[in-house]
Every structure is written in C-alpha cells, then in structure tokens.
C-alpha cells in the first residue's frame, strides 16, 4: 500500500470516528453538538459551606483571593487567618460543643468543601449526624453560631447562638426541583 493510500484510509477512519462520536452526542443530548462550548473557563467564585468567606475572610481583595482558591490549597493558607478571625469574634473561645479547639474548628472550616454522605441522612447537623450534607431546611446559621459562640457545652453567650429565624419563608417541595417557586 502506498503512503498516500494509507494516509487516506487513516483520514477516512478518523473522519468516521469523529462522525460516530458526534452521532452519539447528538443522541444523548438533543442537539448540543452544533453549539460552541469551546474555550477556557477560569474560576471566579468558589463555595461549599455557608458563610465561610463572608465570616472568616477580610473584605476586599482577600475575599476575591479566597473565591479564586482551590480547596486543596486552602487549609495551609487560611487556617491561621480563620483562627485569628474566630478569636476576634469570640475572644473567650476555648472549645465548642463538638470539642474542637480553635485550631481544630478553623482547620476544618479553612478547607471549604461540603462533606456529603452517600449512606447516612444528609444534613448539616441534626444533633446526631454532623456535616453529612446540607439540606434545604437545615438551620446552618444556628449551627455555625453555636460552634463559634456556644462554648464547650453550647450554653455560653445564649443571645448569640441562635438568630431565631428557624425556617425558610416558603415551604420546600418534596419532589424535584425541591426549591420553592420565586416570589
């Protein structure tokens, strides 16, 4: 076989492969293949646990920097920053209701990921399960306030450990998409 023919056969094979991949895509996504999804997309915001950036990171450029950080690089950089912020919020902090020292709590929070269980109930905290997800109705702010201000027994600073807003202003659905319709 001449080099030219080999080249042609390879070319045809490649074209056929591309076409068959396209057909596959077309079947599975209803025609998105004709749309342009090219290009590079660069991180602008990052979030997992509620209120972490707003509470623990200083205003301005540091907040942008946190949003542009990736979780695997957050712990080392942000744990000391979070710890000084925690002690600024509650200078009497020793341990919280989970028995965490300031270093332990901020070490957990500094890596902003949401732990999610595939086997247990999914909840931010329900008295038994801790950080196994975040459900729509979870009162995450009360959990965070309690861990920041409540002391080792959860009874310190009682005026600061709950905001007394205990539920959303609209009921959630039991079926997909679960979130309530817009106001």
């Amino acid at each position, binding site marked *: 076989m001449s080099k030219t023919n080999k080249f042609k056969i390879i070319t045809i094979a490649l074209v056929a492969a591309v076409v068959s991949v396209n057909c596959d895509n077309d079947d599975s996504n209803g025609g*998105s293949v004709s749309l342009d999804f090219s290009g590079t997309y660069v991180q602008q915001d990052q*979030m997992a646990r509620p209120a972490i950036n707003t509470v623990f990171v200083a205003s301005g450029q540091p907040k942008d920097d946190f949003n542009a950080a990736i979780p695997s690089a957050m712990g080392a950089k942000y744990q000391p920053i979070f710890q000084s912020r925690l002690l600024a919020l509650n200078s009497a902090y020793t341990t919280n209701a989970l028995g965490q020292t300031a270093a332990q709590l901020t070490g957990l929070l500094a890596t902003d990921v949401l732990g999610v269980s595939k086997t247990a109930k999914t909840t931010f905290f329900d008295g038994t399960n801790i950080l196994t997800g975040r459900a729509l109705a979870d009162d995450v*702010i009360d959990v965070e306030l309690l861990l920041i201000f409540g002391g080792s027994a959860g009874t310190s600073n009682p005026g600061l450990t709950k*905001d007394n*807003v205990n539920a959303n202003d609209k009921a959630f659905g039991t079926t997909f*998409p679960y979130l309530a319709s817009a*106001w």
Partner: protein
Amino acid sequence: MILGLSLVAISGLILVAADHIDAPATMSGDAGDITDVYAFQGQNTSNLVFAVNTQGLLSPNATGAATFKENVMVEINIDNTGDNVEDLVIQAIKRDDKMYFFGPVAPGTTGTSSTVKTTAATGNVTISTYGATALTAEQNGMKFFAGPRDDPFFFDLGQFKAILGGTASGFNNPGVDTFAGTNVMSIVVEVPKTMLGSSSTINVWAETKKKQ
C-alpha cells in the same frame, strides 16, 4: 500582636450572607456570584441532589430580567478520594434558552481552569421563566432544572450586623429573615449515587468559571 490582628479582623468584617455578594469581583446580580450550595438525598434515596444558587437578593421586580450568562459555567466539583481535589465534575452552561449539562465526568485538568467536557453531555433543560411553572428534564437517569427560585437561605443578617457593629448585644426573638421575599437563579441537578464513584462519602463544592 494578637490584639492588633483582632482589631483588624473586626473592622474588616462586613458580613453579607451565606455567600451572597461576598466579594468585590462577585457582586449582586453577577452571574458568577454563588450564594449557596446544597447537597442532599433526593426523594429517591438512591440519588443525590445538588443545588447551586447564584445572583442573590433578587427582588420580585428584578427577577424576570435576571438571566444566566453564556460565558459563565457553573461547575459542581466532587472529590471521592478525600484529598479535596475534584475527581468528577458536573458542568452547567447556558446556550440560547437552554441549560446544558455535562458529567459527572473526570475533569480534563483539575483546578482553576476548565474546558467544557462536551464528550460527556448528559442532558439539557429549557430554562424556566419567572412566574411560570418549573420546567424539568430527565435524561440518563439524571434530573435537571435551571431558573428563578425563592432563595432557600434564611438568616437575621440585619441583627447580626448590628451585633458586630456594637449597636446590639444579641439576636431578637423572633428574628427577621433578611432573605424573605427574595429570589436567586438556581441550578438543580439530581444524580444517581452510582454515578459518583464508590466511596461512602464525598466532598462537594461549587465554582463559577468565566470564559476567557
């Protein structure tokens, strides 16, 4: 030294919300501003649901005009090996009147830069419009929604600011939900747990990524 840091920390504290309007580069109304991330078991307990809300504090009057942007991808990152590096991503990006979804699939590269995993298209859904019934789609065992929703977050942020500002010593009872009556632009996707790897727990976070 510690006192100095504390004072800087307190004076620098401008609390906004869960993550609403959390930074200068991601202000209100910006399609790239994530307000909250939820991850919970679905009605079908074999599934997990991920909800990523953006563009917080939309008043009802402003909600009809709020849109997703074609140059902003929402990426749900999933680590199933415990190293806080994404092993799987679910990408959502708008084209015309639809939201297109890709994955769960291994990312091309981990970290701050991504390309759309077009070979892993899993479904699309017409973006729901304000005031109309929610449009959902079910493809490849997954469910999809994109559109305006009530902000599910609740918090007496006003009182918390007053506490930090020194004009109040504690919360009121009852408190006032600062987010009552406000909307967000929401992306919700429900995924069979079997598509998320074999680990019993995962770490999840969301990112918005802007086309360069």
